[in-house]
């Protein structure tokens, strides 16, 4: 029932939409691929279905419009930090790689930016530090993978271990309290009733969308991930670009570290734990091809929101995180299955089912 909402929308199968183009662009948000728009609409359907399930299971709460608004905001806030990391992850995966070290980079950037020495430089110094540390660690990943020819999985796995180790060493395994009121205020401040963290996610997502769909950087990312050999033979510097992709992922981690530090008003070596799994899962649910070359920012953000909504759904129903994790696991499997069978065949499958059930 959840998917049928998406299947009602006919996949734009006609390969040639409008013959001649300049003004006739019907869906500017579509990029070039109608298929991914359809997939994203399915994700919106899933999201809507989750909300419907919430409304059915907790009708009293959903009858209260103030509560609903607060709940939506809390879902968005829950999604914001992982969402920022996922944007970077999406680039890396589209570019044919994987970054297992994002959670560790968040921790390292968070810890480094909250040492007493760094805090003495004020909020700007802390933000600067977090971002520089994130980018630098990401670039180290990139250099190891591009020029050291390490497999991304191994290089970033090693970084996962090493960066957390360094974070623990810097913090002396202590929780470092942030005494900077500006930093601490980021998470608690609202503009027009919406938390600043949500604006940050929005800004990063929009920037990511533009970068992927409207710039040469994004075009190179798709080319490098889709067919590295073809990209190389067309004169694209594949190694350098791959390195930049991991740097970009590190940048997102740096931003996320500031957000997370602000939320907790502290940082510690264990922060951002398992973010890599959440980010990868969200990207995959969003339709990013693990082998590279295809994926959308919109899809990834929807993936993050679906995860956050599930967490929220379980929380308001007072269910355990164990059950929640099992459901999340199931959703990842379902998303990959859908990817494998190709969207079209799934629509056909549901279409067929509908016919048989109605007769």
């Amino acid at each position, binding site marked *: 029932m959840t998917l049928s909402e998406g299947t009602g929308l006919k996949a734009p199968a006609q*390969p*040639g*939409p409008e*013959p001649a*183009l*300049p003004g006739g662009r019907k869906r500017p948000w579509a990029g*070039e691929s109608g298929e991914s728009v359809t997939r994203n609409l399915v994700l919106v359907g899933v999201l809507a279905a989750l909300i419907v399930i919430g409304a059915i299971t907790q009708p009293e709460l959903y009858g209260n419009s103030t509560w609903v608004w607060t709940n939506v905001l809390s879902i968005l806030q829950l999604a914001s930090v992982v969402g920022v990391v996922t944007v970077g992850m999406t680039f890396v995966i589209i570019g044919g790689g994987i970054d297992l070290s994002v959670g560790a980079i968040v921790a390292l950037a968070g810890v480094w930016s909250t040492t007493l020495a760094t805090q003495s430089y004020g909020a700007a110094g802390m933000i600067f530090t977090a971002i520089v540390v994130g980018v630098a660690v990401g670039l180290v990943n990139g250099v190891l993978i591009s020029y050291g020819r390490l497999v991304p999985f191994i290089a970033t796995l090693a970084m996962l271990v090493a960066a957390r180790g360094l974070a623990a060493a810097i913090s002396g395994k202590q929780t470092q309290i942030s005494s900077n009121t500006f930093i601490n205020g980021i998470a608690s401040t609202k503009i027009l009733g919406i938390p600043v963290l949500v604006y940050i996610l929005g800004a990063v997502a929009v920037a990511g969308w533009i970068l992927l769909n*409207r*710039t*040469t*950087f*994004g*075009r190179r990312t*798709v*080319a490098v991930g*889709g*067919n590295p*050999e*073809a*990209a*190389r*033979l*067309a*004169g*694209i*510097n594949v190694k350098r670009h791959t390195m930049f992709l991991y740097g970009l992922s590190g940048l997102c981690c740096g931003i996320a570290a500031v957000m997370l530090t602000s939320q907790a008003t502290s940082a510690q070596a264990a922060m951002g734990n398992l973010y890599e799994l959440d980010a990868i899962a969200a990207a995959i649910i969003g339709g990013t091809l693990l082998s590279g*070359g*295809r994926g959308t920012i919109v899809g990834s953000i929807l993936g993050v929101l679906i995860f956050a909504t599930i967490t929220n759904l379980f929380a308001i129903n007072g269910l355990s995180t164990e059950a929640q994790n099992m459901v999340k696991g199931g959703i990842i499997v379902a998303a990959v299955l859908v990817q494998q069978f190709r969207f079209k065949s799934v629509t056909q499958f549901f279409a067929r089912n509908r016919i048989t059930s109605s007769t």
Partner: protein
Amino acid sequence: MTGPGAGGAASRNEKGEAVMADDKDHEVVLRLTDLVKTFPGVRALDGVQLEVRAGEVHCLLGQNGAGKSTLIKVLSGVHRPDSGTVEWLGEPVAFSNPQAAMKAGIATIYQELDLVDDLTVAENVFLGHEPRRLGFIRRGAMADRTRDILGSLGHEEIPARRMVHALQAAGKQVVSMARALSQEARLLIMDEPSAVLAHDEVENLFRIIRRLTARGIAVIYISHRLDEIREIGDRVTVLKDGRTTASNLSAAQTPTSELVSRMTGRTIEYVFPPRPEPVAREELLRVRDLSRAGEFRDVSLSVAAGEIVGIAGLVGSGRSELLETIYGARRPDTGTVELAGKALRPGSVGSAVRAGMGMAPEERKSQALLLGEPIYRNMTLATFTGLARLGFTNARRERAESDRIAGSLDLRPLDVRRPVGTLSGGNQQKVVVGRWLLGDTRLLLLDEPTRGVDVGARAELYRVIRGLAAEGVGVLLVSSEVPEVLGLSDRVLVMREGRVVHEAPSTEIDEDTVLDLVMAGSLMEGAPA
């Protein structure tokens, strides 16, 4: 010769001698009649006749693209024929998959041996049909039987429990043959088995083949080396453009000239645009003493602006590697590449592209295209940065430019937003070539530009290539099809075993001579005049 005589049990060669007519005790195991197989736009097999007898080595001869590989794939169950019959052991058969062919007793040994490197010899020999008891593999029995088979091939020195990756190419080939025997194969198809072997190893291969044929096993042997065919072969069938042009010739006695003429002589129409008058032009590309270990040695060549230079050579002659090295996709051991007097950075594609070089590589799908991406993005893959402003892509202009090029190439369908993967091979190739029409390309490197391309698109590509040259673009072309090299180029280089062995204006050399040179050392030596 495609007439009624072909496929007859005892057909005659040119001199009228009956070949193998006395061979009553050797039954026919395989007979193909009028086999046809088409792929989109290409008629790969167009009426093939073939007859193979038990215990004979039957050689298949033909140029690249003659249909040999397709024929093997039909026999080994990879492809199914569109029409015609395959008779195996007297009964018509249709293999639905390679396993079925294997079960029936037809084993194929491909050039790239399909062994699992990280398993032992015995495990490879019995892969998929291991001797078992209660679901457990009987490792001892498996090793024993492997030793028996290797012994029967005269290679008891190969340890059954050795990992396959520890073996040399020759040893792996023996293991492949042992695998065929373990499945009781009655026909062994060998695709250029000698290509991976050193000279003395070839002798050993022949010894094994003789042992096999003595046991009544039939062998289809494919090779470009005529001296091998003469030594090991019993009968020869010649393919050309998907047709049998001669069958059941005597391998030992048929004169070389006849074999070559059966392989050449056209039935496909090559439509070349008229050749322009030669004019003196300035030098564009200068390659000096380029070498790469194991690929090519001391290659020097030049291409002038507006000139088309063709390189003829077999697969493995180093021609594709040479082209990729000139382009910077491989780093040369020694030597220099200059474009318009400026030295290019070795091993840097970026440097070559910026200097005005473009390449359409051999493997379109794996080396040139983003199949899921729209046509225009594939066309602008090398130029989108130049069309962009401040890092922002200009999709509108990219589409407009691609539209223009697509129109001039007569791309079908003419919609640059379609994913390039939905196009036919010929149109995909147009996209790859079109990519370099967008920028200011001064030198175009083309590797097998018409492979898998249908006749119509072929003529179109020829026209485009000539048109580029007329505008002053230099073209360096590699092709397995000799007529294509001759018909398109102004000058021809012949490569063999990593060296340029001959150079001539294309008007002063003919197909037979080129083919001789390409295969020489095999074709000329040891062949009766």
